């Protein structure tokens, strides 16, 4: 297990040092500094073995977090723990910086004592930790009920939520955030496309609400379809095939595995409910049609048409098309119907920006690129044209069907909860070869 945990600043000075195991000596602190932080060349691996001691490190801005061990530990767990450690610290005092760490070193030691025992990670959910590790120097005069409430929460099945949360207004927000990735050939053939999406939930619910989340997952719809044939006909087209998904630890995985239903008691506040990937039937919000013509050896003519491919009532935002230009470009003239276009010599690209664009529209840019004659035999590699945008729907086609809330002990029902759903589709790596 983890033998020790060190935090360094960018100079390699130790800010926090906590040793859990006897086999880790003080020299380990220096070994990491000398061999990794002060190493001459770039870091070649996040895991370093120095004299039979293994160091795992992650960096947050210019702060190094290193976990040390001499045993064959679960490496994935160590990294997951380091990330979690960062999350916990961020939840307590914001940005992880030298200043903040120094200011909170007592708190950090307290946290490290709690979330890592003899190198074994313990409950590290901020929601639970905040009930008994506070910056105010906790009053140890808790009532007996309070104490047992804390301990049962920390060790219990629902370690991420404390009991007794009350809101006057029960409200929840669901954000479906997707990033759509595309690689398209010049002829308009899709070479690869996938969506990676996240469902982020912000919940302000009283008590211990039991939630059930439903979306248009093909497997679920088809299963239900067996019972009611017409419903399949209605929603069949709209269901989507999910390649893989992972869930926040509050979701009951065995239930998902057996019934494919997503049920959970949410942490209070914001958390990432699930992540998913899809590759089938993706709605590509934009199509880029490039036309590049070489006129002699010193001139290029470029024409790019973009077409928006979604409902006319919706508006895409923050559209940016990036057309790469050869290194020996001497001048560029651009004409575009919409938005603004500029040649940026430092980036070797024409950047065309459009603030808003409705669905089922098209727009065009044409440019004349003048080239300096070169004796470089190597042809210009023609990097792909890339695009950025934001659209108010989910390109994967994912739809939230319901999010039901049950809290049997308190007197509010599913209907009393105010629910908000928002879809945002952003471009990931969205490229068209030309």
């Amino acid at each position, binding site marked *: *297990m983890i033998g020790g945990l060190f935090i360094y600043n960018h100079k390699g000075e*130790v*800010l926090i*040092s906590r*040793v859990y*195991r*006897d086999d880790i000596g*003080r020299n380990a602190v220096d070994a990491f500094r000398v061999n990794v932080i002060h190493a001459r060349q*770039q870091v*070649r691996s*996040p*895991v370093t073995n120095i004299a*039979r001691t*293994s160091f795992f490190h992650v960096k947050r801005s210019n702060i190094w977090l290193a976990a040390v*061990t*001499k*045993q*064959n*530990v*679960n*490496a*994935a*767990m160590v*990294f*997951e*723990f380091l990330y979690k450690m960062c999350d916990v610290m961020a939840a307590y005092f914001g940005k992880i910086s030298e200043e903040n760490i120094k*200011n*909170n*070193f*007592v708190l950090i030691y*307290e946290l490290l*004592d709690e979330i890592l*025992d*003899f190198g*074994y*990670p*313990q409950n*590290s*959910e901020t929601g639970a930790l905040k009930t008994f590790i506070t910056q105010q*120097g*906790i009053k*140890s*005069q*808790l009532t007996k009920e309070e104490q*047992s409430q*804390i*301990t049962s929460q920390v*060790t219990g*099945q629902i*370690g991420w939520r404390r009991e007794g949360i009350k809101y006057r207004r029960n409200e929840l927000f669901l954000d479906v955030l997707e990033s759509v990735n595309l690689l398209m050939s010049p002829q308009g053939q899709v070479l*690869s496309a996938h969506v*990676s999406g996240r469902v982020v939930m912000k919940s302000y619910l009283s008590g211990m609400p039991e939630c059930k989340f439903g979306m248009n997952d093909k497997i679920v719809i088809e299963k239900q379809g067996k019972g009611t044939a017409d419903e399949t006909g209605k929603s069949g087209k709209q269901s989507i095939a999910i390649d*893989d*998904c*992972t*869930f*926040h*630890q509050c979701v009951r995985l065995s239930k998902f595995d057996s019934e494919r239903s997503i049920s959970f008691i949410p942490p209070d506040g914001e958390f990432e409910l699930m*992540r998913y*990937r899809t590759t089938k039937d993706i709605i590509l919000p934009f199509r880029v049609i490039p036309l590049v013509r070489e006129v002699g050896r010193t001139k290029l003519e470029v024409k790019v048409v973009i077409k928006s491919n979604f409902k006319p009532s919706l508006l895409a935002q923050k559209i940016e098309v990036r057309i790469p230009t050869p290194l020996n470009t001497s001048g560029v003239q651009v004409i575009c119907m919409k938005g603004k276009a500029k040649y940026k010599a430092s980036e070797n690209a024409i950047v065309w920006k459009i603030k808003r664009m409705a669905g089922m529209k098209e727009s065009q840019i044409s440019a004349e690129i003048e080239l300096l004659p070169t004796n470089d035999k190597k042809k210009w590699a023609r990097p792909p044209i890339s695009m950025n945008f934001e659209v108010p729907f989910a390109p994967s086609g994912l739809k939230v069907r319901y999010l039901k809330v049950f809290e049997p002990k308190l007197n509010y029902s599913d209907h009393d909860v105010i629910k908000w759903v928002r879809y945002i589709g952003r471009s990931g790596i969205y490229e068209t070869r030309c």
Partner: protein
Amino acid sequence: MTDSKYFTTTKKGEIFELKAELNSDKKEKKKEAVKKVIASMTVGKDVSALFPDVVNCMQTDNLELKKLVYLYLMNYAKSQPDMAIMAVNTFVKDCEDPNPLIRALAVRTMGCIRVDKITEYLCEPLRKCLKDEDPYVRKTAAVCVAKLHDINAQLVEDQGFLDTLKDLISDSNPMVVANAVAALSEIAESHPSSNLLDLNPQSINKLLTALNECTEWGQIFILDCLANYMPKDDREAQSICERVTPRLSHANSAVVLSAVKVLMKFMEMLSKDLDYYSTLLKKLAPPLVTLLSAEPELQYVALRNINLIVQKRPEILKHEMKVFFVKYNDPIYVKLEKLDIMIRLASQANIAQVLAELKEYATEVDVDFVRKAVRAIGRCAIKVEQSAERCVSTLLDLIQTKVNYVVQEAIVVIKDIFRKYPNKYESVIATLCENLDSLDEPEARAAMIWIVGEYAERIDNADELLESFLEGFHDESTQVQLQLLTAIVKLFLKKPTETQELVQQVLSLATQDSDNPDLRDRGYIYWRLLSTDPVAAKEVVLAEKPLISEETDLIEPTLLDELICYIGTLASVYHKPPSAFVEGSRGVVHKSLPPRTGSSESAESPETAPTGAPPSEQPAVIPAQGDLLGDLLNLDLGPPVSGPPLTTAPVQMGAVDLLGGGLDSLMGDESEGMGGANFAAPPAGTMPANLGAPLGGGLGDLFDLAGGVGTLSGSYVAPKAVWLPAMKAKGLEISGTFSRQVGSISMDLLLTNKALQVMSDFAIQFNRNSFGLAPAAPLQVHAPLSPNQTVEISLPLNTVGSVMKMDPLNNLQVAVKNNIDVFYFSTLYPLHILFVEDGKMERQMFLATWKDIPNENEAQFQIKDCPLNAEAVSSKLQGSNIFTIAKRNVEGQDMLYQSLKLTNGIWVLAELRVQPGNPTFTLSLKCRAPEVSQHVYQAYETILKN
């Protein structure tokens, strides 16, 4: 909140000031002071002098202050053991505190204080805390047992804490269960023999239940523990798998990887025909792909593991090539690992895409990455024949860039392409030669020299080129020197007239001026060859080379299996077994995959070669540089082909030439035979398969000696039979038999003179035969044989004679001469005389080999009317050097797993099924040379029935 100020106090007399503050009456001031002390401690200052003052602050109801004092104690107690005792009372008192948080804190901290005297006092509070009503205290106490065990294992056992800990596995609180599992697993690791965890179906069930309820970390502890369990049959394995699969959707990558580990391990036990098996395979791919969207450090861990998984079960990810394409922003360690996996997944189906990617990568900035990409292009050429042409032209394009390291790397891989496709791409040689001057790395120089030597006849100025290298001969690395020596000898053999001077120069440089024994030896070999028999030299030096294989850097199968058991851990990241990087006893326990069970498929049981796997599961590795012997065998000394033609290596690794057996004998006996020669771990494919024969058994000879030293054993000897009737041999009657005793084979002969005249001047000779049997001494008949006299002679045999495949395999043609005439006869020898004494295979090895040998090579036989029981069979066979490695009882049948080795190093693996009460046995044989199976079966029958 400006605690950072505590970091900046560096003035003199600080300790003194702190002391005063610590003893202050004001609580706030005390706390401030302790904070300062901790800050100083963090940055490495020695504040141990303040020990008594800090400990005095311990008695407080301020929890924050208490925690700080405890932190200090943990750090300094060891250096001040006597004073640490002062703290004991407070600890003991705190363990009784009504607040569970304080009780837990006390027991947690106490366990971290490694002072004997304190440890004594810890026992009572710990015992109470293990049974505390509050789960928070219990889960902390569980870990504390592990802490205490680390300090004083004996004490923990004596106090009975282990039993209490075991009871906690049935605790109602999932977190207590998880911590108890973690503690027990750790303790069990340092007692490999103890049955501490005592996993059985009931406790496994408890763990699986807790798995659904505990924290993400607890799930990891439990899954890692589950992975050590050995289900009793395939049904149990499947039911565990079913309950573990949901974990694949967990957001925590470590949970996912640990679940993958359990599944990969238990999958071994499932029959491939099961629907569930293929369902499970399908379920594994998506989560593995999803791991690649995690943070880069985790991606790295995931990729290192995927690398193992792809080698073990290539079918899982074979369609997922695209996800391994390198992204511009990936950190270098992720890029390099992705590239590795891309090469492994490259196939005819995706090669075009892969090549396009690799070409992109070759123009990146990172030198290591570019080199690896270039090398990968070469590997693609070798792996996918259809793409070779395109790969070569891509490499040529890259050479044109004239980027030094790209050129060198390209030349190294082009050498391998030449090896794989001889006489196909020589047109590129001219381009390569243009870059001769820019090569400054030994590997590239050696590769270039090899190419020049190999194609000397087509390069007009080959002699000039090689001569230019010769100038700085002594400054070159050994690799280059050896290669240069060989290349010039090749050149000489091809163009003898113009290059005599050159060859003499290099031979004298190598033999007289060098102090490198390898170089000298090789020089002398060539020198003698050239001076005694140039034709033989040509045959040796210019012999056809065995083909190189398509897969590289494969992990040796037994190690791979072991690493699969360590998925997710450091071992899987390093690709080394834990013993390689963990000190002491921990982690030395060797883990292995479970064997396949289930009676229904036991006949073809441990077969795991996945369907999509390349036919040559046998890893064949291009020898690492500096691997001199491998190098020598490979490139220069490929022996001329005699005997049956070779089935060419990599495509048909399964059917290694029976006669040579060089492969197996090299593997089996390398330590004894070669006296510690440094072989690349699995040298298989690159070792010339037909080594045995024409080198006069040179190397084979060495190996056979090893076979000779063994335990005392006498195998079954058949009664003598008449081989040569008197009628056919002018009155000489020969009868005989074969025997094997104490590692030596002999032919026991009875010579009877039925003629009327005295016989004398006996001599015997064998024709070439399948196993190289030959008389080890002349036939000695001391006195002339008078009429009607019979003499008994035992003729020692060895197996270093010339080899030729006979039909039947065990046919031996013998010529006997006496003063009258020469007589010929042939006889069949029982194969068991060739079973060597060290034919007992390691269990691990057995398992791996069994899997490794393709199924086509398996043969099944019935042995009828044999009334023996399993024990008797086993001991009887052992007498004839058939060794029982393992025995298992499956549904009332005894399964014996046995191995034997022939004198030429061929291993035969056997599975013998014995059913009590049924005199018919079933024998399954697996061998890389399936031809021997029939004869091995006969040997079995002979031994068992006599």
